[in-house]
C-alpha cells in the first residue's frame, strides 16, 4: 500500500473502480448502447430506409439484411425504432434522474444540516410534493393547454413535448426520495465527531456540507440515482401502459413494450427487444452504481 500514499483519492477511486470487473463491463455496455443510439441516423442511412416508414405488406417480417431485427406490426424497421426509442428512453432516464437527485440532495442536505426551522419548512415542502399524486397529475398535465402557460405555439405542439413533460414531472416530483434519504443521513452525520470538530475549528457551513457531509452521502445518492435511472425508464413504460407516456410517433422503449403487449403471442420478439434493452440498461446502471459505491467508499479495502 506504499504507492497509495502518493495517489489522490480520485485516482484511488478510479483504481478501485477498475478492479470491479462487473462494473467495468457494465459501463462498457452502457457506452456501447449510448454510442449505438447516437449513431442511429448513420444506421438509418446505411439501411436506406427511415425509422417511421410503414410497410403494411411487410408486417412482422423476420430478420433480413434490410431489416436486421425484422419489422413490427406496421412493417416498420424494429432495429431503427429501438435505436430511436433508446435515444428517448436513455435521455429521459438520465436527465430526469440526475435532475431529481440534484434537487433532492440540495434540499435534503439543507434540511438535515440546518435542522430546526429550515428542516421543518423544507420537510413540509417535501411532504406536500410527495402528497401530490403523480399519475392523475400527469393525466391533467397532459391535458392542459401549454400555450396558456406562455409556451410558444411551436414548442407546445412539438412532437417531443411529451418527452419534456415527463422529464419535468419526474424531476419535480421524484426528488423527494433522495431528499428524505439525504436528510436522514445528514441528521446523524452532523452529530458525528468529525463534523463537530470541523465546526469547532470554525469551518463555514458551506464548507462543512461540501467537504465533510456530502462525500459521506455519495454512496446512498449514487445508489438512488442509478436505481432511479432505471425506474424513470420503467415509469415511462408504465405511463405508456396507461396511454400517458412518450407519445407516438416518437418511439420509446416504454411505449414499444406496451404496444407489443397486444401482440405477445403473435410476435413476442417485439416485446422482448425493448424489454431486454430496458433490463440491460437498468442492470448496467446498477452495476456501475455498485462499482462507484465501492470505489468512493473511503473505508473500502482495495
Amino acid at each position, binding site marked *: 500500500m506504499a504507492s497509495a500514499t502518493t495517489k489522490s483519492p480520485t485516482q484511488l477511486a478510479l483504481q478501485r473502480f477498475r478492479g470491479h470487473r462487473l462494473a467495468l463491463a457494465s459501463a462498457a455496455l452502457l457506452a456501447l448502447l449510448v454510442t449505438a443510439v447516437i449513431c442511429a441516423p448513420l444506421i438509418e442511412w446505411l439501411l436506406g430506409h427511415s425509422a417511421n416508414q410503414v410497410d403494411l405488406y411487410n408486417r412482422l417480417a423476420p430478420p433480413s439484411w434490410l431489416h436486421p431485427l425484422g419489422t413490427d406490426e406496421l412493417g416498420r424497421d424494429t432495429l431503427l425504432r429501438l435505436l430511436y426509442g433508446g435515444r428517448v428512453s436513455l435521455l429521459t432516464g438520465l436527465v430526469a434522474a440526475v435532475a431529481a437527485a440534484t434537487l433532492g440532495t440540495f434540499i435534503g442536505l439543507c434540511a438535515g444540516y440546518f435542522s430546526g426551522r429550515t428542516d421543518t419548512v423544507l420537510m413540509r415542502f417535501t411532504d406536500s410534493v410527495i402528497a401530490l399524486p403523480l399519475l392523475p397529475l400527469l393525466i391533467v398535465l397532459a391535458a392542459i393547454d401549454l400555450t396558456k402557460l406562455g409556451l410558444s405555439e411551436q414548442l407546445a405542439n412539438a412532437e417531443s413535448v411529451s418527452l419534456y413533460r415527463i422529464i419535468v414531472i419526474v424531476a419535480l416530483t421524484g426528488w423527494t426520495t433522495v431528499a428524505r434519504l439525504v436528510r436522514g443521513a445528514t441528521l446523524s452525520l452532523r452529530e458525528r465527531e468529525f463534523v463537530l470538530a470541523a465546526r469547532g475549528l470554525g469551518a463555514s457551513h458551506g464548507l462543512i456540507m461540501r467537504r465533510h457531509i456530502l462525500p459521506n452521502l455519495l454512496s446512498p445518492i449514487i445508489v438512488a440515482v442509478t436505481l432511479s435511472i432505471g425506474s424513470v425508464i420503467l415509469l415511462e413504460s408504465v405511463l405508456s401502459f396507461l396511454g400517458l407516456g412518450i407519445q407516438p410517433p416518437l418511439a420509446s422503449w416504454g411505449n414499444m413494450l406496451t404496444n407489443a403487449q397486444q401482440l405477445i403471442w403473435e410476435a413476442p420478439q417485439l*416485446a422482448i427487444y425493448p424489454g431486454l434493452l430496458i433490463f440491460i440498461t437498468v442492470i448496467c446502471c446498477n452495476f456501475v452504481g455498485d462499482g462507484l459505491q465501492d470505489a468512493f467508499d473511503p473505508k473500502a479495502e482495495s
Partner: protein
Amino acid sequence: MNSALLRMIAGRLASAALLLLLVAAVTFALIHAAPGGPFASDRAVSAEVEAALNAQYRLDQPLPAQFFAYLGQALQGNFGPSYRYPGRTVSELIIAGLPATLELACYALLLALLIGIVAGSLAARRPGSAADQLSMGLALLGICLPAFVLGPLLVLVFGVYLEWLPVSGWGELAGDKWLPTVTLAAGYCAYIARLTRAGLCQQLSQPYIITARSKGLSELAIIVHHALRGALLPVVAYLGPACAGLIAGSFVVETIFQIPGIGRFYIQAAFNRDYTLIMALTLFFAALIIFFNLLADLVALWLDPRQREALS
C-alpha cells in the same frame, strides 16, 4: 414519551392541515384547467341538458365560489355526489373500494419487507458470495420488471398454464390474492433488499461491529442484534413514500387483476373528469402520505439515538 416529541407531532399535524388545503387548491385548479367537462360525451348533449346539469352541480358558478362551497361541504364530511356515477356519493365509492386497496397494500408491504430484509441481510453477510449475487440479481429483476409485465407473466404461468391460482379477482376465489400481492410487492421488495444490503455493508464496517465480532458473536447474531437496527434507517426513510406509493400505485395491479379498489377509481375519475371524486381521492391519498411520512420519521427516531438527541 417526552415533550419534545409531542411538540413535534403536534406541529406536524398542524402543518398537515395547511398542506391538505394547499393540495386541495392545486388539484382543484388543475382539474378545472383541463379541457372537457364531466358531462362531455361523443354524442353531443343539447344546450338545454348541459345548462340543466351544470346548474344542478353548481358548475355554472365562478370557480372560487365552487372551491369554497366544496371546502365547506368537505369539512362537514360531505364530499358530494359523484358526477360519473349519479346515484352514488363519493364517500360511498371510496368506502366500497378502500378495503381491497388497503388489504392489497398491506400484504404487499409485508411480503416486500420480509423478503427484502432477509435477502438484503443474506447478501450483506458475505458480499460477493453466491447468495449475494443471487439475491441482488433477483432484486434487479424485480426492479426491472414493471408490474404490467410481471403481472401478466405470473398470470400466464400460474393462472393459465399451471392453473394453480385464479387469474384475477380479489377475495372471490381461493388464492386469488397471491398474484396481485406478488406483482405489487416485487419492485418494493427489490428496493428494500438493496437498501438493506447497502445499509448493512456500511454498518458492518463500523467500529462497534468490530468490537462485537471480537467478542466472538456469530455473524448472524451481529447482523440481527446490532447492525440491522442502524442499517434499516434508509429502509425506514424509504418506507414512508413506499407505503403511499403502494396504496396509490396499486392501480396498475388493480387494473390487471380486476381488483375493485380505489386506485382503479382514481385513474377512471381523472379520465372522466369526475371532479368530486378526484378531489376526495387526492385529499385522501395526501392525508395518507402525510401520515405515513410522520410514522416513518417516528420509527427513524426510535431506531436512531443520534436523531433523538438532535430533536431534544
